């Protein structure tokens, strides 16, 4: 079991960086490395970030099956949370997915034309789906929440609409993973296949934790405020 269960506001920030995903969180919250001996509490205060929110996000990533409850969080945590989600989206769109695309392309170069053609189309369609999913959040949901936080309560949109329209972008990745593992012909380059699978494992975990943060922290927090 991960040590993060026992972490409190007084724990040294440096101690929390135990794996890749927690390092990613620090970066997405715009917290700079070089903590020295400072506690989590101190670093969070320096960044004007609530310790509760910080620890909650860390626990979602570090503990599988952890279901956060908004408890002490308040609406003043919302802008930081949105900032975190937006930086995550930015990383996916600008870095992760283009990189995965390149890897898939390389993998398909070693495949027969038939498989390459349909898998390319599958991935392009998936790419569009992801783009639409993220555009909806960036262009509709987040602006609504930001205007709500700045005092505008006249909007017709409700966070419930987001909850109902929150589509699943994990299903096709799961399918793609099984296709690469099980059904791509043996002559496809092993190394490029493994590169693609490693990327998919990484993003599957990230997407899963990200939707827990949206569904279990963001949505309840905003609906409390509406």
């Amino acid at each position, binding site marked *: *079991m991960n040590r993060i269960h026992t972490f409190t506001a007084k724990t040294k920030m440096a101690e929390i960086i135990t794996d890749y995903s927690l390092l990613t969180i620090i970066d997405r919250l715009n917290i700079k490395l070089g903590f020295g001996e400072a506690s989590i509490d101190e670093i969070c205060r320096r960044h004007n970030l609530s310790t509760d929110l910080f620890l909650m996000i860390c626990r979602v990533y570090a*503990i*599988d*099956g*952890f*279901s956060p409850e908004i408890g002490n969080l308040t609406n003043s945590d919302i802008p930081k949370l949105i900032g975190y989600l937006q930086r995550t989206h930015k990383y996916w769109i600008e870095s992760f997915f283009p990189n995965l695309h390149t890897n898939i392309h390389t993998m398909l170069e070693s495949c027969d034309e*038939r*498989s390459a*053609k*349909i*898998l390319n189309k*599958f991935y392009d*369609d*998936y790419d569009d789906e992801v783009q639409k999913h993220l555009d909806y959040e960036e262009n509709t949901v987040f602006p609504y929440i930001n205007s709500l936080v700045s005092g505008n309560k006249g909007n017709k949109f409700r966070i419930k609409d987001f909850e109902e329209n929150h589509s699943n972008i994990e*299903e*096709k990745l*799961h*399918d*793609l993973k*099984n*296709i690469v593992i*099980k*059904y*791509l*012909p043996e002559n496809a380059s092993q190394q490029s296949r493994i590169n693609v699978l490693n990327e998919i494992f990484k993003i599957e975990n990230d997407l899963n934790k990200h939707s827990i943060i949206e569904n279990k922290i963001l949505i309840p927090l905003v609906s409390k405020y509406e």
Partner: protein
Amino acid sequence: MSGKVKITIIEPSEIVVTGLKRLIEQNVSFHVVKTFCSVHEYNTMPNGNPDIIIVNPLTTADDSSDLRSLLQASSNTAILAINYGPYDEEALRDYDGIIGIFNTHEQIEKKLSAAIKNTSDKETYDNSNELSTRECEILTAVAKGKTNKEIADEFNLSIHTVISHRKNISHKLGINSIAGLTIYAVMNKLLDVEDF
């Protein structure tokens, strides 16, 4: 099902067994009849004929045989995992439910009730690995974009049967989306690239 629901727990940690038993029995219709610390112990002692077996997947990990035959469970017995080990949901898909270490007693209750309901009116999964001829036909139709209703009409089946075939197909292949199923169909030459 009359009287209390009988539950057997197979779990090596006494702390977990005690906690789980206490949470489960907060609902008076559940009764934990037996607890074992290993599958071996479970198989060598009277098991209390449970309606539900809750088992830590770590205790079944060394055995490659099928879960249901390992636990000598009939298809009316629900098998749930108590999971705090290194398993994700995918690895535990043979179980009828997964109890997590952070679940509240309400969540556990819901999962137990759902598992009993599912096993009493379950469509049993066909566990052979290859797709049957009928499944290949249905897969091809799905990949061509046909609806369940159209497929039912074409093959003279009820919609319920078509859905059940589709579940079996997805379960065997590990592919759920129509786009993914189409790829499988093309790669296995059930469908021509030009068809879509």
